[in-house]
């Protein structure tokens, strides 16, 4: 922790960066994102198990983007995965953002997509036991039951779009949901529109979701929406051997193809 602060101060002092995006103490035991532009603000930084937010989402916000060159505290591997995916999608230039990774007895400073990839190779990506259990349970259900499960979940969705807004990959300035010529998905929250929204969201994240789980955590009514994109990611990985957030240089799985892609359902 101290070495993280030390490093942040050094970088700020040397003028290498304009700000550090990290975590600070929130109310009670929570952690909230924190932007430090001075030594004083750096002292408020914390880095511990309670820091769950994927900060990459904030990096895409205008207010933060315009601060100048940034360092981001990447205690979550998903933050690095997001940066890789965002680089692949031309949203972040390779080398534009420094990542500070708290590590055993110090802090690792990573400056390039390649360095992110190398670091990520050391930390295996794994779903939480809870998520995995629910995924497995859903997959084992008869289809109609699964339909009922999701319809019940979606029935609570009020289309607040918190899931979308918290996602680092939902950076589009105009989402399909907000498109009205034609109005692909009805605005009000009702059964058909909700199903369509979640189908569209999952499809749009297939091959791009970095599996941070932010969307699920953001949902005020506790719908496990992250499982939809997790599932899509599993499907993409299983069928095409590559998923989101793995590299800044591989082309997206759904905007490329192999002539010998194997499926079993086309007549």
């Amino acid at each position, binding site marked *: 922790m101290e070495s993280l602060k030390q490093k942040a101060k050094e970088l700020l002092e040397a003028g290498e960066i304009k700000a550090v995006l990290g975590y600070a103490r929130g109310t009670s035991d929570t952690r909230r994102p924190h932007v430090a532009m001075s030594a004083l603000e750096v002292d408020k930084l914390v880095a511990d198990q309670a820091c769950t937010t994927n900060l990459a989402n904030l990096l895409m916000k205008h207010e933060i983007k315009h601060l100048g060159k940034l360092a981001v505290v990447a205690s979550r591997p998903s933050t690095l995965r997001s940066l890789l995916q965002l680089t692949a999608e031309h949203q972040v230039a390779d080398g534009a953002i420094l990542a500070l990774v708290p590590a055993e007895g110090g802090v690792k400073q990573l400056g390039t997509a390649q360095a992110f990839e190398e670091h990520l190779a050391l930390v295996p990506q794994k779903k939480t036991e809870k998520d995995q259990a629910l995924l497995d349970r859903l997959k084992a259900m008869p289809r109609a039951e699964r339909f009922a499960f999701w319809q019940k979940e979606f029935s609570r969705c009020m289309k607040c779009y918190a899931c979308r807004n918290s996602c680092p990959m939902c950076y*589009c300035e105009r989402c399909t949901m907000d498109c009205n010529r034609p109005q692909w998905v009805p605005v009000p929250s009702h059964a058909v529109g909700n199903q369509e929204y979640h189908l569209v969201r999952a499809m749009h994240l297939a091959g791009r979701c970095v599996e941070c789980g932010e969307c699920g955590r953001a949902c005020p009514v506790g719908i496990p929406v992250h499982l939809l994109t997790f599932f899509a990611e599993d499907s993409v990985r299983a069928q095409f051997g590559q998923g989101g957030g793995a590299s800044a240089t591989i082309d*997206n799985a759904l905007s490329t193809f192999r002539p010998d892609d194997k499926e079993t359902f086309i007549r």
Partner: protein
Amino acid sequence: MSRIGVFTCHCGENIAGTVDCPKVAELTRQIPGVVHSVDYKYMCSDPGQTLIKEAIKEHKLDGVVVAACSPRMHEPTFRKAAAEAGVNPYLCEMANLREHCSWVHEKNEATTQKAADLVRIMVEKVKHDTPLTPIKVPVTKTALVVGGGIAGIQTALDIANAGHQVVLVEKSPSIGGHMSQLSETFPTLDCSQCILTPRMVEAAQHPNIKLMTYSEVEKVDGFIGNFKVTVRKKAKKVDEKACTGCGLCVTKCPNKKIPDEFNEGLAFRPAIYVPFPQAVPNKPTIDTANCTYFKNGKCGVCSKVCPTGAIRYDQEDELITMDIGAIVMATGFKLMQTDKFPEYGYGKYKDVIDGMQFERLASASGPTAGVIKRPSDGKEPETVVFIACSGSRDRAKGVPYCSKICCMYTAKHTMLYKHKVHHGQAYVFYMDIRSAGKDYDEFVRRAIEEDEAKYIRGRVSRIYEEDGKLIVKGADTLMNGEPVEIKADMVVLATAVQSQDRSEDLAQTLHISYDKYGFFAEAHPKLRPVETNTAGIFLAGACQAPRDIPETVAQGSAAGAKVAALFSQDELTREPIVAVVNRQAPPLFSTCTGCFLCQTACPYQAIEQEEIKDRSGRVIKTVAKVNPGLCQGCGTCVAFCRTKAIDLAGFSNEQLFAELMTL
């Protein structure tokens, strides 16, 4: 509110036999936006078209739906009629009541209802149609021909003779390709050099042809009529203008032990060399990989002896960029390499050679001046075994296809051999004799009947050396697989024809497709054999598939004619069914977020990046932009874009959505 006219055609009994056409007219009259709806016996007939044109004027129609046959049949007809009456042709659509309805269903209410539905769909489409104008793109009337074998030479000459400029790019120091290495050619046995050299010279001297030898294509941008091509002109280390081609340097170069590519390693050449006596251009090149001066800075003999001071050790590669309207690929083929034949000892036994080496032995300009001598000891071989299909039609060697030329040149080789070694005996192991072609089968028969070549149908399993002989072991499948053993003095393998090394990379540079063997792919195997799927790029010769000279020349001329036809126009007209990325008022500028995932999805590389800048030139945003010259209108990008920033004219999101909403 639109003013749409619906015109339902009976097509005689073809539609009216099962569909109640007056009812369709009546039902569709009630669709909001439809102001006129009639049925008629034959809409495509002159009176039918007149009926439409008059209705357009009388009812001030701004959109037309013709409910008749397939749009694939008569869309141009009715669009033209609409245009003549003053309605933009792209505001005229067809509902397919014949192929998709009357011909496939029984006569009943459901069929008539379906017909009305089909019209409804198209009415909604027309409502969301926008007037479109065909796209015009200018044409640069300079062609690029890549590869200077007989294919490239022929193409270049044909285009140049049609009055257009041609740049002929050849990667080796001389044009000529494989044909320049051949001795005599089937099926006439005329000397290859004698027929080729005049064409090489003609190409070099043609006022419309710019020859660039020792050069390679580095980069291709742009699209039909408007390519931008960068060519790397490799440094020959010799100033072509100063050099007179006297050849003193070549004779004086002390480093003379470099295997000669032109003679397939059967002779040697110096480090500064002209590939062969008739080379065009006839000026030397320094092979820097083998030159002593480039290896350790010593020597410099050529520079000292050159009377005009043309040697330029410091000459560097040049990158030349040019505007090109059409490209013809003519990069030819290569032969399968020695390491693929351990069972034949090819590469191990000096007297196991390939067909091209035999051509050099038989050639009057070759290392033996046309006398057949075997490489190991220079003796005249008295028994020669030729093995056809060496590697071809052999899955294990990765070449399941037929190399096409080997049957013929093997027959030729047996004849050339017999003509030179009268007491010699030629054996040919073959799988099938494929000699389709004018005078081809007669040619093979001559080899067998007059020149007494012994043809054995079967594969050779092994070759090994014993007492100075090559023991060829095989089986005769026409004799129930009986084993055959021949003691040969020399063995000639008709090795498989393969695509050039790195042809895939070259194809990717040009954005053309290639098959799984690395041969460039034609747009259609039957109907568009010399075009690629990329508009403005054509194919000639063995780079597309194994070919002999007559076919190569025919295809070269065909490609030349295609280019000449293209260049006969000053502008190209294209269907306006292309994708567009929207532009909006600031601060959004476009709903495109610049993810550029569409870029990799586009099959035609039609999507570019555009920087939107503020007044001071600072980049505010980088967004996608479709090049309408390249876009073919497939819509793959449209379905892919998450922000719906790309749309396809003629098949827009709004149109498809509206069509769907009628159902």
